[in-house]
Each structure stands twice: as structure tokens, then as C-alpha cells.
């Protein structure tokens, strides 16, 4: 279908849903206590984004997300490459890893608050536990699925263990790790928000929790929409980053005829 007509249909859907909702509330068919009118939500969003203190909350959530992502990825890559290379360690640690991964992360939030306090780091820790496993499994897979011929070639060319890691295993794992970038950044956001929601004094999750505490449905909806926009912007940035980082993959550039 033509790109323009797709856009048009998307716009129509948006107008129908939001318009229907607004009219439903005005006509009294929809209870405004549970579903506040879109105009009020929009007004709340505008009030927030024109207020400088709002950006302090955004900044904190962003910091937690980035820290959670970076630390979780670094740990995940290290552990994944190590266990990908050492089958014995992988066999020994397998039940523990599966067990840890099976824990629903939400239950860890109070423990992290206990250990690390109500500030930034308890949220970062929660994000790390989510990001770690995604990166870990992808890095391990990437190392295990290194093309054996490419590996043999590097060895014949004289690569030693460290050089194999740097020139073969890490780049091979990198494409897997980058392919999990989206998922893991999404998890980092989830970790940060849940942490804030369950106990904190700042951040987007805190804004939502506070609105909820006041039975302020407008605030909750506005917070959710802000979050969605927040994730969409990060997604766009990742899109650009991914294209720049993996230049050697066939789909990124056209093959010469």
C-alpha cells in the first residue's frame, strides 16, 4: 500500500478512537473517573512539559535506564562470552542461571531498596537484573555460533586466544548483542520505572505512582503517554545507532550489481 494512504488510515484510526472517547465522556456514556477525557490528559501533558521541574524527573529516569543498560550489558557480554567459550562452566552453572532468570524481578525491588536505599541505585540494580539475561543469552549464542571456518582461518593465520576473542568472538557476538539492543533497552526502562513506582522520590514512575495515590486518573494516563513517547524516542536513537555500528551486515548497504 502507498505510504501516504497508510499514514492517512493511521490518522483516521487515531481521530476515531480519541474523538469517540472524548464524545463518550461528554455524552456521559464513559465514566470520567476511570477514563478522563483526552483533552484533560493533553492539558496535563502540556502543563508538565512546560514545567522545568518535570525534566528533572525525565532526567532521573533516563539516567537509571542508561546506567542499567550499560552495566547490565557489560556484565551480560562478559559472562555470555565466557560461558559461550567454556562448555564446562556453562554446564555447571546452567541450573543456577536458569533459576535466577526464573525469579520475577518485581519481587527483587524491595530487597534492592533495602540494600541500596530509595535513591537511584536500587532502580539501576533492578534494570541490570532484567538487561543482564537478555544480553547474556545473546552473547553466549553469538559465541557458540561463530562460523567454524572463519575461526579455523583466523587460527591458521596465527591468531592467539586473546586475538581470537577480539577479532572473531566479540564481533561475531556483537551482531547478536546489537540485535537484542531493542529488547534490553526496553527492559532497562521497565526496570527503572517499576523501581520508581514501588518506592522513590523522583522519576516518571514516581509521577505515575503519585497521581495514582491521589486517584488522579488524568495524571496516570498522562504519565503513561509520556512514557510511551519516552520509549519511542529512545527507539529512534537506537535505530540510528544500529545502522552506524554494523556496517558490514548485508542488509545495511546495497550489494553492487
Amino acid at each position, binding site marked *: 500500500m502507498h505510504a501516504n494512504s497508510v499514514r492517512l488510515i493511521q490518522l483516521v484510526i487515531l481521530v476515531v478512537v480519541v474523538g469517540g472517547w472524548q464524545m463518550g465522556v461528554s455524552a456521559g456514556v464513559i465514566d470520567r473517573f476511570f477514563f478522563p477525557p483526552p483533552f484533560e490528559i493533553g492539558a496535563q501533558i502540556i502543563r508538565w512539559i512546560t514545567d522545568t521541574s518535570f525534566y528533572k524527573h525525565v532526567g532521573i529516569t533516563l539516567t537509571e535506564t542508561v546506567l542499567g543498560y550499560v552495566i547490565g550489558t557489560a556484565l551480560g557480554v562478559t559472562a555470555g562470552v565466557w560461558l559461550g567459550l567454556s562448555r564446562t562452566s556453562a554446564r555447571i552453572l546452567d541450573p543456577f542461571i536458569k533459576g535466577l532468570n526464573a525469579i520475577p524481578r518485581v519481587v527483587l525491588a524491595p530487597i534492592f531498596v533495602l540494600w541500596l536505599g530509595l535513591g537511584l541505585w536500587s532502580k539501576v540494580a533492578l534494570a541490570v537484573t532484567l538487561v543482564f539475561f537478555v544480553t547474556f543469552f545473546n552473547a553466549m549464542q553469538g559465541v557458540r555460533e561463530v562460523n567454524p571456518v572463519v575461526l*579455523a582461518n583466523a587460527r*591458521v*593465520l*596465527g591468531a592467539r586466544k586473546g586475538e581470537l576473542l577480539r577479532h572473531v568472538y566479540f*564481533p561475531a557476538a556483537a551482531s547478536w548483542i546489537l540485535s537484542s539492543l531493542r529488547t534490553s533497552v526496553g527492559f532497562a526502562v521497565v526496570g527503572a520505572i517499576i523501581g520508581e513506582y514501588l518506592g522513590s522520590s523522583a522519576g516518571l514512575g514516581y509521577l505515575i505512582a503519585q497521581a495514582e495515590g491521589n486517584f488522579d486518573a488524568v495524571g496516570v494516563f498522562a504519565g503513561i503517554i509520556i512514557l510511551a513517547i519516552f520509549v519511542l524516542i529512545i527507539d529512534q536513537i537506537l535505530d540510528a545507532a544500529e545502522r552506524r555500528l554494523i556496517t*558490514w*551486515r*548485508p542488509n545495511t548497504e546495497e*550489494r553492487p550489481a
Partner: protein
Amino acid sequence: MALSAVKKIDYPQVPSAAAAKPMVALQGVQMAFGDFVAVDDVNLTVADGEFLAIVGPTGCGKSTILNAIAGLLKPAKGSVTIDGAPVKGAGGDIGYLFQQDALLPWKTSIENVELGLMFRGVGKAERHEKAKGWLAKVGLKGFEDRYPHQLSGGQRKRVQMAQALITGPKVILMDEPFSALDIHTRHLMQNELLRLWQEERRAVVMITHDLEEAIALGDRVVVLASGPRSRVIDSFPVDLSRPRDVAEIKLDPQFLELYKNIWASLRGEVEKSYARK
């Protein structure tokens, strides 16, 4: 042409280029995968500067023998030596042209060609210069910054060739290097290989399932038995004069005579291996 002036011999395990020193020597080599013995009691000597072609039915253990010489696989029995020294693991003085695509896909042509020098500690400027020269030598000037996926199959093979040869290895191993290429590209690459080899003669061990290729390129053609427990069953010196043109040489009456003789030996093994399946 010192190498083509070799007397005709019938006994398979006598090195044909007896005058030159042995560069590669396999003695009583057995290669096994668990209980499966792929090749057994292989004795083979390749003289310095000799171009040896190995033919044999598919699955008889040709690649396995090559991997033993490269140090990628350890023999279960016997010894492999290169220039008198036992092979200890991969990374020796060897160039290996793999059958499959073996370039590092995340490195450009020039980065790929440089690898051997880099692992040997050659400085950045020097190896870059050399790699550029080698890419030009294999006809890929201007393709330095292309990634493997941006090259055709033939171009990738050329990069692989430059990558394998840049360190000036004592021994060059080739595993059906041109089998994936179309016939014209294959002829072109075969001639190019001969030209490069003629410039600086090394010991070459080339595997092929294409008997014509074996005769057109080799100084000697060795025939392997069908597996399992494959071994060397025949060795034919190729007294065709060099330099050769691979397309023209196929019309030479001497070529046809050799083809008939070697095929008579190879045919039985191919049929045996076919019957086993």
C-alpha cells in the same frame, strides 16, 4: 624446469621431486573422529617448490589430511612435519585457502588481508602497504574498503588468496579452492594462481575433486582410496611443461594420456564409495 624433469615412477610413496628437500612429510598418519577412522597409514612427502594435487572420492578424508597438515586436527597416530619440524597446533608457517568463505565478514578486504601480518606483529603502516600491494596483485585495486558481502564469489576468493599468501608461507594448502566458482572464473583464477606460484615457488598441497584441474595445475597427482580407512593408493608425476595455460593444456595429447591413467585408478575408488552409500 627442474620439477617437471622427474622420471616416471610406479611406486606411490616415493617423493617425485627427490632432488629438492622435503617440505611436508606425513608418516603413518591416522586420523580418527571417535571410533571412526577416516584415514589410516598415510605416507606422503611434498618437496619444496612442488605442487601436489590430491584427488579422491568425496568423504574419503582429503580435508581431514589437509587439516592435519595445518595443525587444526591432531593425528591419532603417526607424525606430520613441516620443514623437518613437527606440527604443533595451528598458526605455523602455512597459508590455507579454504573451500568455503573464510573471510572475517566484519572486516574489509584490506583488513582481512592484513590479518596474518598483524598476528605476527608487523607494524600498521608496513602491513597496510603490503596488503594494498597484494590486493593489487590479485586484481582488486580499489576494492580495499569493501566488506566481503559487497564482493562477488570470485572476488572473495581473490581476497582469500591474498590473505593466505601475504605472509610468504613455506607451505600453501588449498581445499577445493575454486569448486564454487563458474567455469570461466575458475579458469581465470587457476591461471592467476599458477602465475603467482611461478613467481615464488612454494610447496603446495591442493585438494580437488576435479581431475582435469589436478593434472593442469600439479607436478604430481596423488589418488586416495575411498573411506573409511582411506590411504594413498597411487601417485602420478605430471611431466607437462610450464608455464601452463589451464584451458589449452587440456588439449595436449600427454594430458589426455595422463587423464586416462589416473582416471583408471580413481574410478574404482569412486565406484566403491558410491556403492557404500
